[in-house]
């Protein structure tokens, strides 16, 4: 039902059930909030979105207030402004005030609020909170002193990811967000998805600093530094480097990295392509041998960690193929059985991904071989931006340049990997040539949604009907796997799971720009870019070709033992 309310004396049409906050935003008034998150129920914790409603004694938080008939809302009275300003000042009273030394000094919400509300004087003085940063996790750094207790990270971790690695501890102004017994993130069930970093309004959650290691490698004359550029990183970095938002900046980025002193730059989409073909090969093998069992993707490191922690019974069903990043490392360094090295011994491989989990993944013991790591360092998009700024690269002077041979060209599967459901489609495409019987067998891929809300696709190749399902975000993944875990018969041949909402497009390593719509935009860009890439080709190396053939002939396990590219998951059990 529609009716009219008055905002600052302007009549506005609203729908019943809408929250006042969304109406105000639609009307064009920016209301500051610290705790509000799209897709979550309002908590009313920060009290910054207060507005005055005529006839009411108290100020009302617009986020939790559903519109009513005959409302007269005033958003900018002195009373409201004073309240908002005071609240931010209260937050600042015990803030560490080290904005100049803060990883978020450029895009801190609290700092922006302080500026917007014109806070120029310290009115309230309170003792600083005696909390120390938590460096224990390999991926996420927590500085509780900067925390404003907005509960966004707690809610994301609990409701969206169903991990609950952190929660509120204690009460009153002693409250701190931490894991049990205040033992730090490394002792928690954190799966390193990094979603908490992307929602944090201040610098309380950030990447564990790791630029030094890369810098040292760049400085070392003996070392050759290789950069692997992930396609999912390319789609989000453009606008943060002041390029046009929807521009393919792979070439420009290559040029910039060269200027940083990189030895060679490869496109990670080769490895993605290989990864997908390997998995497709395994599925084809299963189909041909009548094994009716879904293959569950294992390319997302956070999802793997999640499965290991919360559903160990799933682990044997995970795909044995290494994630693209690790696969590429293995392959380049010749760490598989073939010992065919593609690069020098003193190479230092830096993987550039929009993923926090990858930073944890490359440190796992199964991803090293006799002391040699497959990947030597991982930088998230945020850190890459920092590195570029640190080195003072003038973006305007960058000229596009192709990544190094032989892994120079962005392959379409690469961009498909960038969003939830894309990988499934890629698998289907890769599967088609493997199991079609006749030359002109038809191919049909129909994505849809099952009645219970699970994303799935029907794949028809010739006379065969196959089903593929996918989910992104652990909450949805749990729903999808519920049936699988309770041993219900499921007809999926492949299940794709990504820990972050919207897949890598919503990855925890992207630059911080709030809102769900951002990841949707990135997904669209991925889809546009993949069109530019043309038709998928066969892999470009005989080595990979041999490997794929081997799976075809001798089955997964044997082939893997020969090539040693398994991710160590089934070895663990």
């Amino acid at each position, binding site marked *: 039902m529609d009716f009219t309310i008055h905002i600052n004396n302007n009549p506005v049409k609203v729908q019943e059930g809408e929250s006042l906050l969304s109406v105000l935003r639609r009307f064009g008034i920016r209301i500051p909030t610290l705790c509000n998150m799209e897709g979550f129920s309002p908590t009313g914790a920060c009290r910054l979105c207060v507005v005055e409603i005529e006839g009411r004694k108290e100020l009302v*938080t617009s986020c939790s207030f559903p519109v009513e008939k005959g409302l007269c809302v005033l958003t900018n009275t002195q009373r409201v402004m004073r309240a908002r300003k*005071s609240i931010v000042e209260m937050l600042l009273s015990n803030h560490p005030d080290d904005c100049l030394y803060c990883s978020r000094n450029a895009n801190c919400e609290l700092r922006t609020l302080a500026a917007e509300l014109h806070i120029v004087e310290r009115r309230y003085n309170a003792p600083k909170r005696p909390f120390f940063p938590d460096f224990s996790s390999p991926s996420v750094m927590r500085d509780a002193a900067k925390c404003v207790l907005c509960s966004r990270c707690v809610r994301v971790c609990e409701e969206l990811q169903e991990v609950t690695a952190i929660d509120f501890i204690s009460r009153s102004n002693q409250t701190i967000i931490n894991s049990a017994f205040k033992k730090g993130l490394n002792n928690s069930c954190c799966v390193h998805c990094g979603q908490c970093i992307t929602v944090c309004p201040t610098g309380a959650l950030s990447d564990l600093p790791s630029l030094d290691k890369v810098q040292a490698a760049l400085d070392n004359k003996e070392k050759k530094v290789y950069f692997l550029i992930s396609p999912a990183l390319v789609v989000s970095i453009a606008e943060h480097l002041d390029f046009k938002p929807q521009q393919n900046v792979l070439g420009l980025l290559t040029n910039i990295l060269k200027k940083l002193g990189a030895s060679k730059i490869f496109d990670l989409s080769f490895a993605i392509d290989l990864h997908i073909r390997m998995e497709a090969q395994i599925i084809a093998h299963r189909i041909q041998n009548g094994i009716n069992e879904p293959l569950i993707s294992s390319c997302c490191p956070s999802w793997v960690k999640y499965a290991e922690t919360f559903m160990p019974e799933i682990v044997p069903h995970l795909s044995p193929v290494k994630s693209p990043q690790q696969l590429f490392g293995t392959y380049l360094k010749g760490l598989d059985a073939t010992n065919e090295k593609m690069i020098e011994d003193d190479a230092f491989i830096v993987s550039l991904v929009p993923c926090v989990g990858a930073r944890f993944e490359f440190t796992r013991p199964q991803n090293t071989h006799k002391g040699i790591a497959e990947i030597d360092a991982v930088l998230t998009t945020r850190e890459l931006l920092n590195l570029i700024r640190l080195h003072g690269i003038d973006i305007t002077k960058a000229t596009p340049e192709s990544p190094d041979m032989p892994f120079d060209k962005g392959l379409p599967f690469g961009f498909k990997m960038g969003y939830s459901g894309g990988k499934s489609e890629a698998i289907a495409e890769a599967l088609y040539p493997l199991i079609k019987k006749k030359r002109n067998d038809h191919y049909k891929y129909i994505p849809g949604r099952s009645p219970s809300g699970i994303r799935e696709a029907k794949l028809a190749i010739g006379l065969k009907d196959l089903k593929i399902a996918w989910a992104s975000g652990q909450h949805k993944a749990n729903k999808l796997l519920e049936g699988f875990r309770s041993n219900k018969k499921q007809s999926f041949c492949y299940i794709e799971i990504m820990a972050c909402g919207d897949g890598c497009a919503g990855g925890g390593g992207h630059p911080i720009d709030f809102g769900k719509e951002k990841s949707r935009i990135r997904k669209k860009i991925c889809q546009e870019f993949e069109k530019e890439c043309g038709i998928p080709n066969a892999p470009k190396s005989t080595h990979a070709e041999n490997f794929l053939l081997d799976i075809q002939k001798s089955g997964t396990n044997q082939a893997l033992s020969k090539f040693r590219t398994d991710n160590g998951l089934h070895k663990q059990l």
Partner: protein
Amino acid sequence: MNLTTAESIKKLLVQKVLLGHEPPATPEILKELSFLGKERIHRPLIYVGMASCGTIAGASKIHDSIKEYLEGYNYQVDLVEGGCIGLCSMEPIVDIQMPGRTRLVFGNVSKDKVSLLLDEMLNYSLPQGVDILGQYSSQILQNWDDVPDISAHPFFAGQHRLLLKHCGVIDPLSVAEYIAKGGYRAFSRAIAQKMPVEVCQCIEESRLTGRGGGNFPVGRKWRMVQETYASQKYFIANAVESDPGSYMNRMVMESNPHLLIESLLIGAYATAASKAILFTRREFDHAAKQFEKALEQARNFGLVGHNILDSGVSIDISIKKGARAFVCGEETALINSIEGKRAMPQAKPPYPTEKGLWDKPTCVNNVETLINVPLILHKGAEWFKGIGTETSKGTKLFTLSGQTSNRGIIEVTMGATFREIIYGIGGGLKNSVRFKALLLGINSGNFITENTLDVRIDYKELQNIGISLGSGGFAVVDQTTCMVDIAAHLTKFFQKESCGKCIPCREGTAIISQILEQTIRRPDAGNKTSALERFKGIMQLKSVSTVIRETSLCALGRSAPNAILSVMQNFNDELRSHIYDRKCPSGSCKGLRVFFIDPNKCIGCTVCFKKCPSDAIVGTIKQPHHIIDERCIGCSVCYDSCKFNAISAY
């Protein structure tokens, strides 16, 4: 009629009284009821007030020694663990009723007085040297000569005891006595004759409002739940009572649990909730046990559970014991606590009446509010409307504490003035010091001063002077207490008890608390900017307080700055002398004392010199010492350690 077995008593009470006609028909039944109601007795009867307040005062020791005494006594005597009549400052209280005579109330009974008391009383004579508070006069029993009626005692004379009528009088764990005195009749009649809507209507007409502090019309709340369609609804009695300085609800639970059970039953019936929950604190151990035992009895009588009294109505009552946190008293926090979460209040709407416990419609009422209900149903909405003032109906319970002569739980009609309570019921101030302030609803921080003492207890009138009645704390403060100190104490309490969810309450209370600490303490030695910080802080007090009051998430947070705002309004002189003169007029802020060494008395033993933590004392051995004021932090170590009384404090 043969009333020797429990079964026959049950049959009489259920069949003839609860399901029978009104009034209970035959003289025979009436006679039986007077025995069950302990108006007439066959054996001597001794009550010991064993509610928590009595136990704290040592009632269990008295109980034990009476028991010991009776073991050596030849005749049978009934010893009952009774409840509390409310006069807690006179605890331990023992009541003795001899067959044929009226019941006597003795106060301040100590262990050594027990044998004297029993020796005399069991021989029908009044003991000397024991405080007799009064007797319960009766027309059918012989009254004691020269003993005033209990209602003539100043503590009781000013009260209007409707809710507390039976508290401390009946055996709390005797369902028979409760029914014999008219209990459960309101409920049995309601389920037999009234629809849930009609019950809601009756309560709405009575204009009963929530006593927990919210003052929301009870009937309207019930109707909102009643009208919401849901597969399951809950009815919760809030007995958390986390507000320090008030324990009326605990007292009712301990002294008359059946009244609460009956109220819960009526509430659950009226809101069509099949599950009623009493939510209390684990610390209220005795109260919870009393309630559980009473609940068992009620179940046994078929008053709780499936198909109550063959009416087709099923209501289950359970008790939940929560952990300790002040904020649990807020209804949404309480619901979170029951669900096993951190008790953080939630933003309203949605209100619990739509989405409460387990997201089902839930009605949460304070115990004190609820126990009004059986009375209203019994005597009618019109009768209830006749009590109190135009805008506030009924009576209100208070926990009278602080520096009055009589302290305890009291019940007064709405419309009584504070002066009447303090000087009438409270018996004036003890130690004959002048009255200074009254902390109303203690932690809500509303101060009544000499000027507002004659305001009537009425929600509207109090609102007009900017004060809310609070939940029922009532602490009287005399001139020796420093109001700034009290405000600092209250603010500190709110700061510690803030749930930490919303910013104004979490950070704001910490800021105020720190500012007030600075005003009642001496600065650290060496901190040169402290005076500046103090003045800066004081300048911000009002603005922080206002923002906390205007923007906090829950009512508890909103009342956090009341204390300091109230001090600024009523005791500004006192506050100013703390800030500017660094003096506490009432002398109770120990941190602001100035110390002085009398050179004539000081022998130069150097004890104070060695102990001073801030090097504020100078001097050499065997020479009089001297205190440097600027360095002194007012810790009073020197004062305490001087053996020659050479140091004096101002």
